[in-house]
């Protein structure tokens, strides 16, 4: 059996950043496994701009952002095995991979970084009514068709959900000559960024229907139309509010789910709020020597933060592979009032440096305050003009304060609370 120090699963932005950081820390025996034919992950199809503002101080498109990391990895001589799929990861860090060129391989790893990214919520998970015709795609699938394959999914489209990918696709379809009739959002607010509401919908006069959903889907072979209805405060459709749209295409932009099948089979504990592994500030999961980062850990808004987080995981994985350390105990991080899915869930007592905690809020909070407390003791208080569920919040806690605590709670309050 081959033995290596660090194996990275996935060569998207997270996997690339982890591998680069591990190599720069001195890791010579390193492999990156990628199931697609090329590295770059979802960035390859995200041809719009806005990536890299935090990291590079300029606005890049997705392929340009990915190209920088791919070039860097090549300069460092990092081996990326493309068209290769990881079949399993065991809890004693043996990885089984398969590819056409090399067949089945088992690799014993000093440490493993999970960087598989996330998937879109598919129609089957949405309990949508109506028939099952062709013409219904997730927004990301339509994005792949247009941007990577040069195919148009249809001519008249309705978009269900107002996540950023759905908004971006409303603009792409319009620019490529299709007509987008409506963007339909069940919540009373959009899940997408203001910038995308303005530049992807308003710029092209595409109406956004908040507190509405699709209540019928028609067509036998190909989609012929959908019915939209208003919903009440409990998200139940209201009779008599139906509007019909004739369309051949319905795009679904209804959320992203970390892709954790391998993680679960490795026996890693997951967090029900994030859908990803429970990790320490080193990004180590509940299985010793197995690390997780990027969208497989929790769904990010900005790739810049994915890269930053993943570099931490890559360095920590190499450190782990170099030799076991004594367990010094952990501080538990609890998600409190209005806070969902704070990451990391634990802080190692023996790690160093300040701790970045990322989370989402459960509702819109204006004139907000984020508090980190240990019992009645306040460790950090940060004011923010506004916090919205669609944007990840991140705060930095002094490492000294964090590690001297037993258990800390992160909470957020609006100005009126």
């Amino acid at each position, binding site marked *: 059996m081959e033995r290596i120090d660090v194996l990275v699963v996935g060569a998207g932005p997270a996997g690339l950043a982890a591998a680069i950081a591990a190599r720069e820390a001195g890791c010579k025996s390193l492999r990156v496994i990628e199931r697609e034919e090329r590295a770059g992950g979802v960035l390859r199809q995200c041809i719009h701009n806005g990536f890299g503002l935090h990291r590079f101080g300029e606005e890049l498109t997705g*392929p340009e952002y990915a190209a920088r990391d791919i070039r860097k990895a090549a300069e460092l001589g990092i081996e990326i095995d493309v068209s290769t799929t990881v079949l399993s990861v065991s809890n004693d860090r043996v990885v089984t991979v398969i590819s056409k060129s090399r067949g089945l391989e088992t690799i014993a790893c000093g440490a493993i970084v999970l960087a598989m990214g996330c998937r879109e919520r598919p129609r089957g998970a949405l309990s949508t009514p109506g028939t099952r015709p062709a013409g219904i795609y997730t927004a990301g699938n339509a994005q792949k068709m247009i941007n990577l394959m040069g195919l148009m999914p249809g001519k008249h489209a309705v978009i269900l959900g107002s996540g950023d990918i759905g908004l971006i696709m409303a603009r792409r379809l319009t620019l490529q000559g299709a007509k987008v009739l409506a963007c339909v959002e069940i919540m009373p607010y959009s899940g997408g960024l203001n910038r995308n*509401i303005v530049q992807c919908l308003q710029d092209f006069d595409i109406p956004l229907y908040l507190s509405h959903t699709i209540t019928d889907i028609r067509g036998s072979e190909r989609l012929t139309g959908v019915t939209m209805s208003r919903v009440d405060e409990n998200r139940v459709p209201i009779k008599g509010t139906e509007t019909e749209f004739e369309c051949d295409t319905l795009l679904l932009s209804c959320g992203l789910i970390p892709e954790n099948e391998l993680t679960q089979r490795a026996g890693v504990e997951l967090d029900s709020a994030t859908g990803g592994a429970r990790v320490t500030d080193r990004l180590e999961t509940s299985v010793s020597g197995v690390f997780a980062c990027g969208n497989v850990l929790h769904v990010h808004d900005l790739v810049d933060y994915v890269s930053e987080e993943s570099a931490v995981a890559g360095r920590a994985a190499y450190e782990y592979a170099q030799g076991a350390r004594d367990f010094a105990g952990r501080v538990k991080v609890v998600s409190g009032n209005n806070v969902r899915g704070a990451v990391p869930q634990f802080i190692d007592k023996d790690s160093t440096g300040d701790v970045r905690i990322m989370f989402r809020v459960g509702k819109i909070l204006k004139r907000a305050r984020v508090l980190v407390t240990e019992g009645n003791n306040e460790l950090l208080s940060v004011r923010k003009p*506004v916090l919205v569920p*669609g944007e990840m919040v991140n705060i930095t806690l002094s490492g000294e304060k964090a590690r001297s605590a037993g258990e800390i709670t992160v909470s957020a309050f609006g100005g009126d609370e």
Partner: protein
Amino acid sequence: MARELICVCCPMGCRISADNSGGSWNFSGYTCKRGLEYASQEVAHPSRVLTASIPLSNRSVPVSVKSASPLPKELLISAMRQILSLKVEAPVSIGQVLLKDVCGTGISLIATSDVL
């Protein structure tokens, strides 16, 4: 004329009212300096970076492209028409200029991915 804008500078998303009935633009509803600057720019010269993918005459896959700087917003659709009619051949590399002048703006169109 009165217009309603949503500020895109931060998650606040302030609703800014713009009114030029007095001859010059008057803004209300913004809560910071960036908001005022955004609104002034948006009513005077709204502009956007255009990104797209265009077919290659000798490949089955397209190449992704962007305008080298923001184009006037009202030109986006005609710019698309122009760039979709381009005859481009692979190989193409990142940063390569595919069109020198998009719709008479003097702004170039450049490739954002490599197609070998």
